[in-house]
């Protein structure tokens, strides 16, 4: 294989990956009334149960999507950098050592939005395509 052909294949694969990602971008959403910014680290700490507040001290309640859903896979793989199994054993240990209860799980992007509309403390993540004007995007998971 010539160097040129190999480069071509590599760059094609790379662009396919980028397209694949952009088609299914996951965004972290909160209520528009939340004024505090959220960094990668803040979101990570929230979904690991290590913090329970926004950076301005207001209460923050993380909500997960169901196991196997695309947004959840994105969050775990690209932001928390752990596998589903590691995430679940992490929470099993925390739960039964009294350190805390894992975030609630909902079935769809729409349910996440509904929860945020009802409770401005909720922090969720959804497919970028399903963002509505009742939620605010604070972070895009690359």
């Amino acid at each position, binding site marked *: 294989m010539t160097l040129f052909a190999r480069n071509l294949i590599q760059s094609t694969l790379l662009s396919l990956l980028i397209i694949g990602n952009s088609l299914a971008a996951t965004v972290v959403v909160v209520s528009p009334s939340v004024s505090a910014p959220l960094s990668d680290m803040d979101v990570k700490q929230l979904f690991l149960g*290590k913090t*329970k507040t926004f950076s301005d001290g207001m*209460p923050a309640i993380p909500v997960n999507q169901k196991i196997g859903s695309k947004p959840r896979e994105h969050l775990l793989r690209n932001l928390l950098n752990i596998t589903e*199994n590691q995430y*679940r*054993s992490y929470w*099993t240990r925390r739960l*039964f050592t*009294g350190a805390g209860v894992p975030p609630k799980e909902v079935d769809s992007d729409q349910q996440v939005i509904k929860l945020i509309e009802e409770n401005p403390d909720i922090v969720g993540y959804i497919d970028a395509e399903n963002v509505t004007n009742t939620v605010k995007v604070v972070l895009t998971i690359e």
Partner: protein
Amino acid sequence: MRRSLWKVIVAINLCGLLTTIQAADIAVNGFASIVGGMTLDKDDTYLVDPSSGATYDDNFSLQPESIIGLQLDVDLTNDVKFTTQMLARGGNDFDTTLEWAYLTYHFTPNFSGQIGRMRTPFFFYSNALDIGLSYPWIRPPMDVYWPNVTSFDAAKLNYATTFDTWDVSINLFSGTSNFPINQGAFANSGATVDNPVMAGMSLELNRDWLSLRGSFTHVEINLRNIPVSQPDNSVISVDLSNQARYYNLFSKIDYNNVLLMAEGILLTYDNKSFNLNTEVDWYVTSGYRFGKILPHFTISKRREDDDVHAATRKITSETFGVRWDLLPAAALKFEYTHTDEENTLSDNATEILSAAVDFVF
């Protein structure tokens, strides 16, 4: 199907009990271990559950270590939480006991206080003692995790924070406990260990692949109704008081597929007296993950120095085991342990085979 039905039944019962409380949130979670084992030689027994004193003998049994528990986490308000754990141990004929029942109050998001019945924080795995899924072995090494006082009624202050990539947690605690001594020759003797003071502190540091812990506990001990054989073979019952200091160090490296753990304790008593000897106990565990399968090897040692009688008791054990993570919520384990107990008078080796299924629901 049955599992969810069980959850529903429990939840309904609890709702009935808790109608007076305006509970925002109740989480009910359960855990269980089905464990069977035996010693390989006739007349050999091996202690596997310090709190009940249950042992294996040369007949295969599922009773001594099997366990089922239910945990309730109730958010009473945003800052106040109630946690309770009910447990049925095979070693206790599956009588249900309340192992945990405490309130947590968050003064600030990082600073909290707890009051009630909770685990004695002697070891790294103290809080997870009954949750087989949280450690590689079937049971934490008995040469270190032998104390039968596993819970106490206490008040605890906890400060947890993050420095850079380190999670830091500092605990101050003080409490009391009173337990029957069920181990070995003391079983059914009426002997009890009463600890009017168990006070100390622990410091835990964690970053992604590294965990470190150190703790110190001061314990006041009143042993009551201790049977003591007299030269004429009669047995009298005595009471003894003492004070102990208890130090613990732990480290764990969980990097890529490699697992390395070491934990040790040093126990010293103010008065050298009957059966209360300076101890140094430790274990080292190593393992390597092949996907969902984790073979591991542990060497552990318990050493008591009886200065009064110028005697030493040494227990050395090797454990070969494998943990297979069938599902994220269930693991299958097999273990072989060889243990050798040596004192001035005798040297006795025991071999134990055991198998377990640990799961949460």
